[in-house]
């Protein structure tokens, strides 16, 4: 399974989202590869992804995709991440 953590520049915020999503997945006992990417890399990265994690501000930049788009408000809130990933992957 593959999950994308998406941000505008591909460093910083997406990397924090990746770190915290990995912690949420560990809570759920789910194995997945999480890839941090920027807008330029999103289309290729998302081809075989099941879930795209993004901020509310960035959803409009995500083009047509078969992946579930999961909006994360607080990138540091493991409860929010765990709850939303559980729904998306359940």
């Amino acid at each position, binding site marked *: 399974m593959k999950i994308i953590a998406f*941000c*505008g*520049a*591909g*460093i*910083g*915020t997406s*990397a*924090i*989202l990746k*770190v*915290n999503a990995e*912690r949420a997945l560990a809570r759920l006992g789910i194995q997945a590869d999480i890839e941090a990417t*920027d*807008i330029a890399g999103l289309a290729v990265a998302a081809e075989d992804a099941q879930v795209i994690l*993004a*901020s*509310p*501000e*960035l959803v409009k*930049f995500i083009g047509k995709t078969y992946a579930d788009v999961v909006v994360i*408000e*607080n*990138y*540091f*809130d*493991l409860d929010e991440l765990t709850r939303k990933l559980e729904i998306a992957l359940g």
Partner: protein
Amino acid sequence: MRLHELPDDVFVLGAHAPDWRSAVRIAGDALVAGGVTTDAYAERMVQVVEEFGAYIVIAPGLALAHARPGPDVLHDGLAVVTLDEPVVFGHPHNDPVEVVLALAVTSNEGHVTVLAELANVFNDPMATTAIAQATTVEAVRAVLGRAQPEA
């Protein structure tokens, strides 16, 4: 780069910013003061927000300003700015911002440690407020020092 080793120059406490651009530029100035970037980087951080929106406000009250690696980044670094009055960035949930972090990295790799440390600090929902209310650099370092480096 480790959070507890950040030099005094990259901390600006109680800064006044009339708008989000000023807040980001103050953080950019702190990176310059710390020898992390040249002047050009601040404007690139502003451009990221102009292009993609206020997604850099990644948690309530907390912005992580950043831009891509570039020739204006001299080495990996982080600046920490607290604002005397919270500033609206335009995020639908996490405004207004009290603490601006500015991250600069020379490559897309190799900064995982500091981001894991940031996650350790800010997984605590009280951390942003604790930093915003700190009146000394040592007090901010004490909050940042809660990061337990991962083996």
